[in-house]
């Protein structure tokens, strides 16, 4: 930036420029900044754009020319890949399974977490700090530490491959973060509100249901989005506890297809687009909550 300022000094004519040139000059001076921004945006947008464009091209076209050729006529767009993918064993079913795994897992986690978060924020009891420190510690424990024992329990009880197994597992793995986040949100609510409710004779159930939950709606909303996306996008938990079960979610189906096709995997672009369509819609519609969830989860908010 300093170099540019120096260069401008050399090029600048001696007499004052007419006023109409000043915005132009400012734009030119800021051009390197804008170029950097555009390059960064391109690096982050082009890969996804390429995949989406390719998913609407025929497999033959994908092999003959890059996706960018379809940006100019003749584009030759087609839904072939989508037809093929939806007729491929397990894909349509996998999409449904993903929904049937994600929605209950999210509901179970967030309800259990909000109860515990309320108690950690607004009740005093022996062991409270100890339990909470354990929860903070569990935030960083890799779930890989738990795969073998939990898989064995699931296998022994016949739960492996069922929805119940992954609902329970996701709940167990997700709770530490959610209790942590919601406890911070609920703990930040004004004490006076709870005290005046208490004077009016409210018990904990009504304080939780009529004060803590409604006042934490923004935090709960961002948490729900966060958990929903986390479970929807999960590969490891489902792959370990479901393997090749007909109940496996779309991430597992797509992964197994990609790793088993040596060549000719290109039509799976459509499967990838299907897999990411729901998260992208959720994200674009609720970006503000999503961002708030991330910033409050990592930075004390």
């Amino acid at each position, binding site marked *: 930036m300093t170099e540019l300022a120096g260069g401008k000094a050399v090029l600048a004519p001696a007499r004052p420029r007419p006023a109409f040139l000043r915005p132009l000059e400012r734009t030119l001076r800021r051009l390197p900044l804008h170029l950097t921004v555009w390059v960064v945006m391109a690096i982050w947008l082009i890969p996804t754009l390429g995949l989406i464009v390719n998913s609407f091209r025929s497999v033959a076209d994908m092999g003959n020319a890059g996706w960018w050729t379809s940006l100019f006529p003749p584009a030759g767009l087609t839904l072939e890949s989508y037809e093929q993918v939806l007729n491929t064993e397990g894909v349509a079913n996998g999409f449904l399974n993903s929904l049937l795994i994600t929605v209950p897992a999210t509901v179970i986690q967030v309800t259990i977490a909000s109860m*515990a978060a309320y108690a950690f924020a607004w009740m005093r009891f022996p062991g409270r700090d100890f339990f909470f420190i354990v929860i903070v510690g569990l935030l960083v424990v890799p779930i890989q530490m738990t795969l*073998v024992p939990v898989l064995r329990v699931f296998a022994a009880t016949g739960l492996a491959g069922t929805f119940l197994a992954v609902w329970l597992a996701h709940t167990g793995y997700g709770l530490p973060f959610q209790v942590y986040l919601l406890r911070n949100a609920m703990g930040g609510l004004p004490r006076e509100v709870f005290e005046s409710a208490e004077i009016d004779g409210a018990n904990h159930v009504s304080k939780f249901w009529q004060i803590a939950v409604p006042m934490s709606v923004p935090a709960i909303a961002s948490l729900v989005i966060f958990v929903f996306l986390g479970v929807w996008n999960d590969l490891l938990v489902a*792959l370990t506890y479901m393997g090749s079960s007909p109940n496996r979610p779309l991430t597992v189906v797509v992964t197994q297809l990609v790793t088993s096709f040596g060549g000719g995997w290109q039509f799976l672009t459509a499967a990838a687009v299907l897999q990411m369509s729901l998260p992208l819609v959720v994200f674009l519609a609720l970006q503000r909550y999503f961002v708030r969830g991330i910033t409050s989860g990592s930075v004390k908010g």
Partner: protein
Amino acid sequence: MDDRILTAVAAVVGVPIVLAGYLILSERLLGALSAPVQQRLRPYVWVVPAVSFATVFMVLPTLNTVVLSFMDRKSEAFVGFDNYVFFFTNPDTLGALKNSLLWLVFFTGFVVIGGLLIAVIFDRIRYESLAKTAVFLPLPISAVAASIIWKFMFEYQPPGTVQTGTLNASIGTLGFDPIPWLINSTTNNPALIFVGIWTATGFAMVIISASLKAISGELLEAARMDGANELQLLLLITTPLLYPTLTVVATTMVITALKVFDIPYVLTSGAYDTDVIARQLFSQIADAGHYGRASAVGVVMLIAIIPLLVLNIRRFRAQEEIR
């Protein structure tokens, strides 16, 4: 209707009802007791579901894994440190360990520094939120989909044929030969790590940007008046002020780097010397069926994370004192 749908609907509706019933019923039971006993027991009613989930799915399995790591393939006999000896002598696991260290250093470094630079640069433009959305976009995309996205970027055809991969076509127009990015041993690990960076930088950027907005503009203006240039501002004022945030982001990224599984699993299945420890662990379970060795890999991951665990708890305690 499909049984699975019924089960899922039952869970969505049933679980909150059961929990509400549980709370109401326990209130009834507590009502029969004296007031001090009530006060003593009530909190546990509220935390028991969450604490038991955490115990059953995280605490007990973690302890169990430590024990299993000293046992044989099917956990029938103790074998001492055999599984650890295997981990630290076998070329495959050592290779995976080396690659995980590469992830740890380069993934974390580039995400934190990249996130910081992008946040600072985007802070100066009017279309900031649009630009941020672009970098943020990969965040809701699963690692599986991101890997397929990048499979097309890295696509390789032999020299002389049409390059359909974005990267090889681009370097082709500049006159270079195509590179088999995911096979070539000097490019494949950087390529995989870059996919990780691409997915995670938006996360770092958003958090850093939020803290950046809190830095007083007057402070920066004063430094500018004193003749500091933009680089000095970044290195001597902005970065030190953002230090606590950068530590939080770096901690998160170190954990992400150690746990990385999906990207190598989908893009290379760990072949061509791109394996990482989390995929090794999975492969010991799913391919080799050796629970002892899988558990030993888990314990190595846990030990690597213990410093962060201590750091996290300390930071939490410090925050609590401010509260």
